[in-house]
């Protein structure tokens, strides 16, 4: 029975994949886009995308694919794939390989996909995957969804780093070239083993040194009860003379359904006082709507 499809949204592109194919490699900040997915045993789907300043000729690209042919493989044009995808089907003793490409002319984007079928080729699934590859629509905020995290981040924030320790995924975004303002989203597995006390104690311990705690309180986002704290640290002599501090807001909540702790950080240079979160910032958990979003936070009073 085929597993249900899941969606990955990464660096401006989105596509569907079977739930048992998991992301094993992905492009970081400043790299051309790539997502590599594998099942338990084999690499299954590899998607590359890059913006070009010219219109690529798919015929030449497919000819290049054909040159990779070995003695024991036989390539035929890929038939019935959703337009405007074009590609090759390569039959080898180890299985079938699909190499396909398409362009998005308006955005001058070239997308290439490789699908590996080690045993039976599932044509319908293959077509569904190719048809689902689209560019994210432009807008003030963009959805990032992969590795279990789903977050809507304002478009002016760019990915700065990704950390994928076992059971602990962390994405960091910055607006512009400076390190501030900064948003970090973290999702941590197996809290029953490492969360020995209340969430508030853990959150306070997560703060870097030389941060002065201003306020810590219980808060409710969606159907989750969590903790939030505001602290500040020095941003240098000049900034201090201008009355500006590195203000930092930390939020954490435990999603019982996913058995994960979510941790959201927002840091910016600002005058001492409350922090205003970026509009449209949202972190989704339980996959039933946002657990936290900056708009609802202002409406719902904290406890």
């Amino acid at each position: 029975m085929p597993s249900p499809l899941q969606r990955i949204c990464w660096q401006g592109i989105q596509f569907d994949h079977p739930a048992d194919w998991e992301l094993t490699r992905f492009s970081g900040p400043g790299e051309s886009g790539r997502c590599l997915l594998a099942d338990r045993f084999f690499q299954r789907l590899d998607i590359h995308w890059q913006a070009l300043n010219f219109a690529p000729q798919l015929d030449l690209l497919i000819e290049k694919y054909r040159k990779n042919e070995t003695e024991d493989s036989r390539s035929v044009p890929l038939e019935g794939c959703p337009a405007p995808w074009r590609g090759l089907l390569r039959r080898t003793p180890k299985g079938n390989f699909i190499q396909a490409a398409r362009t998005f002319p308006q955005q001058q984007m070239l997308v290439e996909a490789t699908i590996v079928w080690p045993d039976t080729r599932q044509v319908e699934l293959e077509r569904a995957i190719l048809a689902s590859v689209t560019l994210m629509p432009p807008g003030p905020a963009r959805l990032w969804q992969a590795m279990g995290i789903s977050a809507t981040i304002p478009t002016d924030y760019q990915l700065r780093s990704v950390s994928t320790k076992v059971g602990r995924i962390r994405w960091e975004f910055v607006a512009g070239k400076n390190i501030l303002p900064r948003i970090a989203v973290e999702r941590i597995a197996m809290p029953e083993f490492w969360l020995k006390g209340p969430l508030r104690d853990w959150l306070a311990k997560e703060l870097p040194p030389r941060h002065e705690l201003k306020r810590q309180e219980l808060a409710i986002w969606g159907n989750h009860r969590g903790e939030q704290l505001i602290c500040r640290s020095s941003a240098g002599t000049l900034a201090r003379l201008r009355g500006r501090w590195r203000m930092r807001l930390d939020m954490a909540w435990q999603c019982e359904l996913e058995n994960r702790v979510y941790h959201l950080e927002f840091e910016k240079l600002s005058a001492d006082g409350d922090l205003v979160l970026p509009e449209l910032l949202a972190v989704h958990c339980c996959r039933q709507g946002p657990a936290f979003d900056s708009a609802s936070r202002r409406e719902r009073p904290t406890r």
Partner: protein
Amino acid sequence: MKPSRQKELHSPVTAVTFLRAVPYVNRAMEITRRPDGGALVAIPIPRPKLIFPPLSWIFPVSSHRRVELEPLGTVVLDLCDGRRTVEGVIEKFAADHKLSFREAQLSISEFLHQLVARGLVAIVGGGKVSQST
């Protein structure tokens, strides 16, 4: 050792082979459970031939190697019951802790290799034999 056997032992282990192999715990080891869920495991080790009295009175040599396991490590060791494959161990661990297969696979594969190196577990099957002490 026959060349074919040697070749088999040193051939690279593929993901398929490893996942389909079965981890067995060392029957000679003694496990002392701790209240926090962790465990202290003592594995008998051969006594060095050159250490005998009175030398052994001056340089006492332990007859056991002791390995301390955290609660999560103990859970994984308990899952190695000689019936489950590595894939089965990962599946069970992932299901119990709401992890994806890949998340559990990375940590458990690494941990099983450490257990093999310390002689707690031997992984058998799929054409590859990983022998513990």
